[in-house]
């Protein structure tokens, strides 16, 4: 059977990190964007968010954090629906990187 990379239940995974942590402002903002898109704008479903996360390449899936996966999926879904276009998105990201410097790794 074909197994999707994200479908990793039962695979060796190491210990679970259970330390409490606060969310960063950018993570809260992504959560708010998702709420707006789903509840206010009716532009996205959680099933579509999930599908977009599952579509990430395995190396991206493994290296991105939880909310980074969310925003990657949100952006891909909105481009797919024609709400955003990729050129606009790339230009805006480049503009912000110039203004604020590159994001920390």
């Amino acid at each position, binding site marked *: *059977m*074909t197994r999707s990379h994200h479908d990793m*239940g*039962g695979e060796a995974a190491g210990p679970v990190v259970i330390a409490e942590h606060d969310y960063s402002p950018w993570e809260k903002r992504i959560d708010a964007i998702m709420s707006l898109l789903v509840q206010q704008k009716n532009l996205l479903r959680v*099933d*579509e968010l*999930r599908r977009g996360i599952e*579509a990430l390449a395995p190396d991206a899936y493994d290296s991105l954090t939880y909310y980074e996966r969310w925003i990657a999926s949100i952006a891909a879904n909105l481009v797919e629906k024609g709400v955003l276009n990729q050129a606009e998105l790339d230009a805006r990201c480049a503009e912000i990187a110039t203004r604020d410097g590159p994001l920390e790794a």
Partner: protein
Amino acid sequence: MSRFAVGERVTVHDRDPAWEPRKPHLRTPYYIRGKTGAVERICGEFRNPEGLAYGEDGLPKQTLYRIRFDQAHVWPDYSGPAHDKVEIEIYEHWLEKTP
């Protein structure tokens, strides 16, 4: 109408959905396909997420069940207590009657 009753033994399909023309969005974990358990409860009827994930209407609604499996059955090398269970919510079209 639900096809299975509480307590009934059911087996999860081990079908292998095609990845073309699109990669399927599945709510049935890989590790549980082909395993047998019992209906713990009927959760209700919901639009099918396999279609919702691609912007479709997800109709007709599918009955969702909570299925209880023995851990020792799911994991051949399971070393915990013999009465340990795992419960997973699975849509009706992924279940078949266990002979």
